[in-house]
């Protein structure tokens, strides 16, 4: 009875899966991708959508945006070490655009789109497609729109299709983040005709694009079984870069980290994404497996103390806690050395960058003295952390609990399931939180804007409010020159260290384990794997 409506509800990708199987077998007769051209990647969980601009998309959807769609530009690739290529956030390379020119008055930038750029269906990419895609990103709401706004990309009027191959972005204001923000995973380009045709009346074709790729990127989605696997095949006609060496990529969702480790150690998987730091340490030490280790730009693990509510609205108490945390122990037993220490720095910031070591270290005498000065009587409190990052956060929390006991602070640990965590943070009442944060756009003022600013975004977990801090952050964001930028950055770094609403612990590593035969690992701000540069054998 409801069969028909049910069938309509089926995503095309899921339908395509069983139908595609005979096709694959037929293709096998011609020239199937050999095992050397097929990559098996294992990860904790896969995409919950194929549309990174859509609302509620999970982290792995960035990978779909990266591999199946193109952007106008990408960050310049820079070799980091023998294993990893990273990027320079201050320099851009062509992707869909073959060239671009900023207007001499600094109010706009004009892109020239490659003549040979084609969508998967064969149609030429036009400036209208780019405009539709960027219009969509600033209008659709949710994360995509927020991310666009972060680079002063705010209104559809800013995007102009001059002619088929010429596209212009009018700047809303002078913002150093505007150009880099065009290279992150959000402003990718859809085949707008295909999307609108299948959109069923929805101007942004949300439902269709969630379940179908309508792009022109280096890979197509051959099959998508949410919660099980995603299979990508190469788009052999891709012209916006060197043709990828891999012809097929199978990304399997394996929730158990120890199974993922076993798979990579026994050679059954080519790449393992997201292992506990202990496993990466072992693999790196053993040396049989290649481990890519990138200190995640802009990111720290921290303990946040609610500065708006008692008892942690007491500055001396916050400083006492900062002097009491067992930094070394945490680095050793929770992060297994897979991070850059962010404690024990000089009293003033060693460099004008983020993250930078805080001046605190484990010194229980100083902590006790400050505790006495604070005049706070012994109390009980709660420490929240996300269950999803439990392998790191839980031992960290246990060590924090133990270390605060001598100060008369009794800590109860509260592990919050992933989806509730954000809800809990939004209440702004959590006294202590262990979390990690890093912005895609690696500037100190970007981190401080999200975390310390008085507009009290969800990431301002301590609900820290200080007009002086806001002035410094805004001053840096729209600084007219380098000197005033440096002055403001120094100002907010010093204030942040002094007031410690966030106690920095360490800058985490982004670790990826891969077989020795795998090469060309590329790290991007979104941290998802880029199949276009990977090689095997």
């Amino acid at each position, binding site marked *: 009875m409801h069969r028909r409506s049910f069938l309509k509800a089926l995503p095309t990708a899921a339908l395509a899966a069983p139908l595609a199987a005979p096709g694959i077998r037929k293709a096998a007769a011609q020239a199937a991708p050999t095992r050397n051209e097929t990559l098996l990647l294992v990860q904790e969980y896969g995409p919950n959508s194929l549309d990174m601009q859509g609302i509620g998309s999970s982290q792995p959807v960035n990978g779909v945006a990266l591999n199946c769609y193109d952007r106008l530009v990408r960050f310049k690739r820079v070799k980091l070490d023998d294993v990893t290529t990273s990027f320079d956030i201050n320099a851009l390379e062509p992707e869909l655009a073959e060239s671009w020119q900023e207007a001499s008055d600094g109010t706009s930038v004009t892109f020239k789109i490659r003549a040979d750029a084609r969508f998967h269906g064969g149609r030429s990419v036009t400036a209208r497609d780019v405009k539709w895609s960027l219009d969509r990103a600033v209008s659709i709401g949710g994360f995509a729109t927020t991310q666009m706004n972060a680079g002063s990309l705010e209104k559809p009027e800013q995007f102009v299709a001059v002619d088929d191959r010429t596209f212009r972005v009018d700047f809303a204001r002078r913002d150093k983040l505007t150009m880099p923000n065009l290279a992150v995973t959000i402003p990718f380009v859809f085949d707008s005709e295909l999307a609108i045709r299948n959109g069923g009346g929805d101007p942004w074709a949300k439902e269709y694009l969630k379940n179908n790729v309508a792009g022109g990127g280096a890979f197509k989605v051959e099959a998508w079984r949410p919660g099980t696997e995603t299979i990508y095949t190469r788009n052999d006609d891709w012209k916006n870069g060197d043709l990828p060496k891999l012809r097929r990529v199978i990304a399997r969702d394996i929730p*158990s*980290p*120890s*199974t993922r*480790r*076993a798979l990579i*150690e026994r050679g059954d998987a080519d790449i393992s994404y997201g292992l*506990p730091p*202990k*496993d990466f340490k*072992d693999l790196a030490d053993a040396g049989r497996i290649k481990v890519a280790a990138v200190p995640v730009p802009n990111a720290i693990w921290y303990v946040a103390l609610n500065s708006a509510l008692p008892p942690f609205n007491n500055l001396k108490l916050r400083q006492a806690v900062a002097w009491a945390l*067992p930094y*070394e*122990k945490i680095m*050793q*037993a*929770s992060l297994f050395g897979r991070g850059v220490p962010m404690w024990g720095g000089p009293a003033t910031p060693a460099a004008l960058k983020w993250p930078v070591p805080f001046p605190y270290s484990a010194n229980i005498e100083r902590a006790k003295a400050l505790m006495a000065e604070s005049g706070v009587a012994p109390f009980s409190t709660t420490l929240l952390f996300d*269950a999803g990052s*439990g*392998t790191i956060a*839980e*031992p960290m*929390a*246990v*060590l924090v*609990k*133990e270390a605060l006991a001598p100060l008369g602070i009794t800590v*109860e*640990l*509260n*592990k919050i*399931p992933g989806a509730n965590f954000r809800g809990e943070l939004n209440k702004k009442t959590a006294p202590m939180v262990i979390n990690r944060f890093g912005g895609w756009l690696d500037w100190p003022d970007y981190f401080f804007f999200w975390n310390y600013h008085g507009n009290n975004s969800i990431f301002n977990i301590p609900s820290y409010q200080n007009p002086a801090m806001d002035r410094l952050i805004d001053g840096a964001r729209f600084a007219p020159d380098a000197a005033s930028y440096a002055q403001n950055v120094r100002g907010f770094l010093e204030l942040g260290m002094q007031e410690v609403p966030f106690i920095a612990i360490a800058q985490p590593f982004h670790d990826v384990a891969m077989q020795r035969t795998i090469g060309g690992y590329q790290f991007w701000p979104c941290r998802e794997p880029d199949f276009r540069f990977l090689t095997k054998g």
Partner: protein
Amino acid sequence: MSAAALRHARHVVSENPVTGFALGLFVLFVLAALLGPSLAPHDPLASNTMLALQPPSAQHWFGTDQIGRDIFSRVLVATRLDLGIAAASVALVFAAGGFAGLAAGFFGGWVDQIVGRTADTIMAFPLFVLAMAIVAALGNTVPNIVLATAIINFPLYVRVARAETTQRREAGFVDAARIAGHRDMGVLLLQVAPNILPIMVVQMSLTMGYAILNAAGLSFIGLGVRAPTPEWGIMVAEGASFIVSGEWWVALFPGATLMVAVFCFNLLGDGVRDIVDPRRRT
């Protein structure tokens, strides 16, 4: 316990070495639960990151965990909590399920209907997921784990109590009590309840093992007892990621202890049934 019953018990134990063995284990577990904290050689909560992930040694019999806590002490201290949760939940469902079943069997009619429907509804749930949902919804605290474990055992107790009561409702002694002028509730509690007690005790010992497994399973999923409290299920979950990397002792000892405890209670449950109700031996 009368002398005859004691003789019967001794006979069953001697006849059945397995029950004797289980009884021995049971005594050990009860001792560990009672004396655990004072017997533990180390503080079960004290970390020592210099000695993290050490294999079993004379100093640390079961080795140390990720932040250098002594696993033997943690396993030992956890006994009280794990057995406590199971015992509390079994006691709770014994009282609630036993009474509901008793009333349903004794009064029949709408009481029977309501109790029966409730039990049917619970049975229609996938039980472990129901327990998970209850704990997730009410919050993961020990009382809620006890409650969830009791709820999923409820239908079992209701059925046994109801069946036993129905059999005895028309028995002579009940009629006699009625004629003697006792009120219904009085007859129910004073005359019928003591008669079904032995069967219910068997039921308790049989479900004890299941209750331990259930509570540990909840903790394993992350919906049980909170860290850093020592508890077998959490300890297995914490150790799970270390098995492949070769630190097998972190998960093995709590897992094996859990296994032995459940095994012991299940064997003992069988043994108790043999003593109380030899007909039902299966």
